[in-house]
């Protein structure tokens, strides 16, 4: 196998993303879990970049890591987690709780392995997707998905507005 620089970066970033995701789901302290998840998203961004999707990589950093996870962090900070909360949390992470996730993960992993061995999996052909191409695609052929997502966001907005109003005005 002939590894180019891009390939090395790709595999390193993918391994990094996998490792940090594994750490994220096994932490009892939700803040550490979140931070590892942020690292995993950054790893994913590098993976996207090496696959020739720089726009997706940038959005991964700006939107997921830079905005959504900050909101999660914001909420976790407000919860004021102390030692008792973390101890309770690790009490929930018993051995039996891992059985179903491991089975489901094994099924997915098996499918992935099957695809890879058949050789039909996507190889990273270096075809760079420009931001313009993404935009055109979004607002022509994928317009239905964009509209659905915007409707979902509108519903969220109305819900937030309702919850945010003073209690007297809500009745």
């Amino acid at each position, binding site marked *: 196998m002939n590894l180019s620089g891009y390939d090395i970066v790709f595999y390193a970033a993918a391994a990094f993303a996998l490792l940090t995701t594994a750490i994220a789901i096994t932490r009892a302290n939700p*803040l550490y879990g979140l*931070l590892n998840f*942020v690292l995993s998203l950054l790893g994913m961004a590098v993976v996207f970049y090496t696959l020739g999707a*720089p*726009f997706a*990589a*940038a*959005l991964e*950093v*700006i939107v997921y*890591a*830079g*905005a959504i996870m*900050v*909101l999660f*962090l*914001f909420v976790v*900070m*407000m919860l004021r987690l102390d030692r008792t909360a973390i101890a309770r949390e690790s009490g929930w992470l018993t051995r039996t709780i891992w059985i179903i996730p491991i089975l489901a993960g094994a099924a997915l992993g098996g499918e992935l392995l099957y695809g890879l061995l058949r050789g039909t999996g996507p190889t990273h052909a270096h075809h*760079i997707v*420009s*931001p*313009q191409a993404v935009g055109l695609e979004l607002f022509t052929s994928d317009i239905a998905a964009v509209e659905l997502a915007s409707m979902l966001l509108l519903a969220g907005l109305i819900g937030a507005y309702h919850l945010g109003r003073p209690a007297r005005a809500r009745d």
Partner: protein
Amino acid sequence: MNAILLSLIQAVAVLLGITLLAAGLTFAERRLLGFWQDRLGPNRVGWQGTLQIVADMIKIFFKQDWTPPFADKIIFTAAPIIVLTTVVLAFAVIPLGPLAGIMPNLNIGLLFFLGMTSLSVYGVILAGWSSNSKFALLGGMRAAAQTISYEVFMGLAVVGVVMLTGSFNLETIVAAQTRVWFVIPQFFGFLPFLIAGIAEAHRLPFDLPEGENELGAGFHTEYSSMKFGMFFIAEYASIVLISSITVVLYFGGWHGPWLPPAVWFALKIGAFIAFFILLRAALPRPRYDQLMSYGWKLMLPLTIANLAITGALMLGGIE
């Protein structure tokens, strides 16, 4: 191999330049503030106080580097590193002159800058959380809410420039401004961008995360010695960063008559840095709710209207 070595040397040069500039700014700011507020400022160490930086550095290096026993050690140490790293990394995409800069040709350069500024808020939030004290936590929360709000219209404001050039590449954006600087057609994009930039750098009048009359020192209350020094340098580095990106996006980058490009670039950045300092000298600090409603109720509609009008004019064929 030579190309790699060359860009490595360039990167180190830029890194050192920014750090030195940021250190120099700590002195320049205090002198300028003194001048504008009709007092002297530091003028005792060396000629006109020029050695003040050295004195400050000696002081900050020899202070005890104290990590509070109630803090979360790992995150407490990581926070200032995150802030400084993301600010310095963002300089990688800034074109400093024709063919100068570390990678000004990156096809997602502008997005890279936005990504780095949005990541730098982690450092501030985590500093607030890991300090495990009320003042720091409140400062961190304010920083989180403020940065997320102002980031929204910072991103929307630059879309006007992207629409006019059709590229996220900062070198292309500079090249598109040979005739007219984008500040003229995009004035209502420039205004929100600069304001959001000031908010991202946590500078007065948007320095509520560290509002000292109510929060001690805000998110870095528990920090001392060089860990505090990193926050301090990062703040000045981000002033330089916001100034340079504003010049690149709206003031024609290095373009200008007669003088060499590097001189023009330095002059323009210098003017913006001075403007940042003048703002601190002149403006009071708003209340927190004023800050938030100003962002969401005034700036966001303004940027959206700017986008709509720009789009309509472009569709109509008027430049």
